[in-house]
């Protein structure tokens, strides 16, 4: 917490920058900004626990205001926590050391949709679904539709290096971001020009994509967009085990077919998510596929993928399970009586690995997590020709908060350790935030020193989102 003199000075200067109506030090506003969508913060709220609060929250309306705010915070050496939609799943916006939350929700302009270049230029605070709907009105899609779409925003997409549900075809946010504007911790503004690619040294954009507010604040971006596909089709195939399902996915991609959606559910996840609506034999694994594009291409791609699956012994379930998933893709994100009862908690460790390691990582993590009496169910999604991601989903319910939080941490510790031991990487698209912050140095190894030096160079006072990404961790 800030001392009262520093806080008074901060508020006085912030009010000069954005007006008093756009600064709050009211405890209620701090409480309501103190959590994101990370399962532990949500579970603690349900359990009646208090979360760490910021000292103030400020709502800028322009890049220039953000620059002035950061200059002020840097001079006062105050922790700054950028907040986008507050929809992250890793606690990245939690003000664990107090300080100033810079909430970008007022910066929600969609500047231009460029029909010639197929790009859109936005402010960081535009909410995903608002952007998507505006693009749809013009005959386009963003290609980036994470489950959090209704709450997450453009800046958050970039800051967490996120991926959408159709990312196999359209790409992840790092593929979609052509231009970027960032305010550095000292208040200077840098514009990284929107171009399809370049060869003028390293791509500096990529330094900030995934930086989670530790290196500056993303204020504007230019994204690729796509014409709304002429056609979309769905296909579902059931395999007797994970191994054959993965073989099919690998062959589909490596044969040159790129589905928009690829999701292979393990037996437990199939039982939970599919068997409740479709007749699936116990132990089977459902593969859900979707294809976007011209009608002719979609027909060809679906046939080729289906043939690969059938040749590997799959049972054809037609479009049903896959289409149902698509139509209900946001449903799983809602709280239910089951997921919120007592001291229950569920979370996902979204890892990634190449195909040679993927299955080993899956079994190693599953074993490690189940040791703690967690119910573990998983699906493989966001796939590539060379590997892919696993959503290692777990649920645990302890008799009290203390037991549950401690067990939750053990599941994470052992799950991540197993992932790293088998050669995987501990996050594919959710980010590091607070949940993974203590594992980050282990993930990166000696290369983490490079990140540390960059942080020291750009943020010598360590004001930017301290404690996240393994940077500025304070005991």
């Amino acid at each position, binding site marked *: 917490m800030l001392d009262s003199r520093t806080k008074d000075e901060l508020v006085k200067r912030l009010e000069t920058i954005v007006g008093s109506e756009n600064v709050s030090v*009211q*405890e*209620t*506003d701090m*409480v*309501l*900004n103190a*959590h994101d*969508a990370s399962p532990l*913060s*949500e*579970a603690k*709220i*349900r359990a*009646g*626990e*208090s979360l760490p609060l910021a000292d103030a929250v400020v*709502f800028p309306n322009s890049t220039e205001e953000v620059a002035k705010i950061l200059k002020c915070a840097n001079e006062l050496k105050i922790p700054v926590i950028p907040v986008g*939609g*507050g*929809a992250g799943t890793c606690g990245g916006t939690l003000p664990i050391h107090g300080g100033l939350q810079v*909430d970008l*929700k*007022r910066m*929600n302009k969609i500047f231009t949709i460029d029909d010639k270049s197929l790009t859109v230029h936005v402010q960081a*605070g535009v*909410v995903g*679904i*608002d952007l998507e*709907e505006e693009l749809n*009105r013009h005959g386009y899609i963003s290609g980036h539709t994470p489950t*959090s779409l*209704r*709450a997450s925003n453009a800046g958050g997409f970039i800051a967490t290096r996120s991926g959408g549900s159709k990312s196999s075809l359209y790409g992840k946010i790092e593929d979609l971001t052509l231009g970027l504007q960032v305010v550095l911790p000292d208040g200077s503004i840098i514009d990284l020009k929107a171009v399809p690619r370049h060869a003028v040294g390293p791509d500096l954009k990529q330094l900030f994509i995934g930086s989670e507010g530790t290196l500056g604040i993303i204020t504007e971006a230019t994204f690729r967009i796509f014409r709304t596909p002429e056609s979309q089709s769905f296909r579902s195939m059931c395999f007797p085990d994970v191994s054959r399902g993965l073989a099919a996915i690998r062959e589909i991609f490596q044969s040159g077919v790129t589905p928009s959606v690829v999701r292979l559910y393990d037996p437990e996840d199939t039982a939970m998510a599919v068997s409740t609506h479709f007749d699936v034999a116990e132990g089977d694994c459902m593969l859900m596929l979707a294809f976007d594009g011209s009608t002719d291409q979609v027909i060809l791609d679906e046939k080729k993928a289906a043939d690969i699956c059938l040749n590997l012994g799959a049972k054809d379930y037609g479009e049903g399970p896959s289409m149902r998933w698509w139509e209900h893709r*946001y*449903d799983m*994100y*809602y*709280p*239910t*009586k089951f997921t*919120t009862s007592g001291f229950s908690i569920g979370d996902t460790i979204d890892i990634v690995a190449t195909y040679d390691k993927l299955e080993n990582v899956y079994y190693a993590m599953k074993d490690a997590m189940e040791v703690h009496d967690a119910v573990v169910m998983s699906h493989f999604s966001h796939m590539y020709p060379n590997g892919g991601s696993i959503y290692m989903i777990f649920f645990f319910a302890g008799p009290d908060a203390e037991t549950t939080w401690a067990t939750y941490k053990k599941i994470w510790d052992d799950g991540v350790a197993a992932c790293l031991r088998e050669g995987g990487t501990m996050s594919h698209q959710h980010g590091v935030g607070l949940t993974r912050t203590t594992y980050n140095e282990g993930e990166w190894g000696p290369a983490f020193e490079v990140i540390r030096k960059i942080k020291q160079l750009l943020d010598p006072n360590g004001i930017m989102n301290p404690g996240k990404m393994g940077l500025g961790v304070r005991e």
Partner: protein
Amino acid sequence: MDQEAIANQVRMCAACPKMCRHVCPTFFAWRSESPTPHGRALLLHQENSGTRELDDRGIEVLYQCLECSHCLTWCQPEIDIAEIVEHKRRLIVQDGRYPSGLDSLKQNILEHHNPFGEDHVKRTEWFKTSEKTGEELVYFVGCTASYREVKIAQQTQKLLGSLGYSLTVSEDEWCCGSPLFRTGFTEDALKQAEYNVEMLNAQSGDTIVVTCPGCYRVLRNDYPEYGLELKKPVRHISELLEEKLNDLPKTAIDGTVTYHDPCHLGRHMGVYDAPRQVLEKIADGQFIEMERNRDNAMCCGNGAGMRTLFGEKAQVIGSERVKQALDVNAKYLVTSCPFCKNMLASQGNGKIEVFDLPEFVIHVSELSD
């Protein structure tokens, strides 16, 4: 809803990953986590669980809610934050901790029987007594049409007269109590309600007709909930007009018309089709929906004390709703609520013509003459 049910619902809502926030009009207006469904729920959950008491800012947040129930449309667990907020407002009022900005609203209704502080004797100045022929209806006019949107009342009389009805309008009509019910002043609302029930039951007409959905909801739902029985059915004007489709004018109007669903009529009372039937008939193929319609319609920004307490933010919301009508290139924006009409017309800025349903029917009939 009992306290345990409320506690379970706010506990679940408080820690939701914000699945409805994108449609919350007050989130739109403030662009902050505070005036949001999950924000309200979190404050109530913390109070229920003993984590933190509701402070003055918390109370303000609970009054930064339109009770429009748009969040409910997007809530899979079907948590109606509007109902929960209203329940809490009653307790806040009982404790005397409500925002002082509501004092004038309450006093005006108690003293003058309308929220505007207008002289009660002027309530029916617009009414032209006519010979009673045809089925007699008791027209419960409501405060906005009586004082602020008088043309709606006048056109309603004209329209219903042309359809063969005769209207009774009582000089003894008081505010229905909706602004008081919605802001937590139940005891004061019931004084209005009891008086109105006695007055309405003494009228000779067989049916009560209303043009205001706020009145409609209160007369149909709130009065019976408190054991106050009206001995006549209550119909909204759109429902009456739907039954008279063949008698309504029809003409090729000079542009498209779209419809704004009032929250009290749509989400709270389930009346979506009747006004559309009327518009589709009279606009003769020129009716067009806004992107957000029916149970996904955006609130006009006026409800549940918002205009009284946070007028500028109410206008931000109203202005956005007008923009949504302009986005579909509508020339006419029609609603079926004097209060909504008043807000939307104030934000039209000459870009769109805003009508209440009876006004628009008369407008079309004049075009077709």
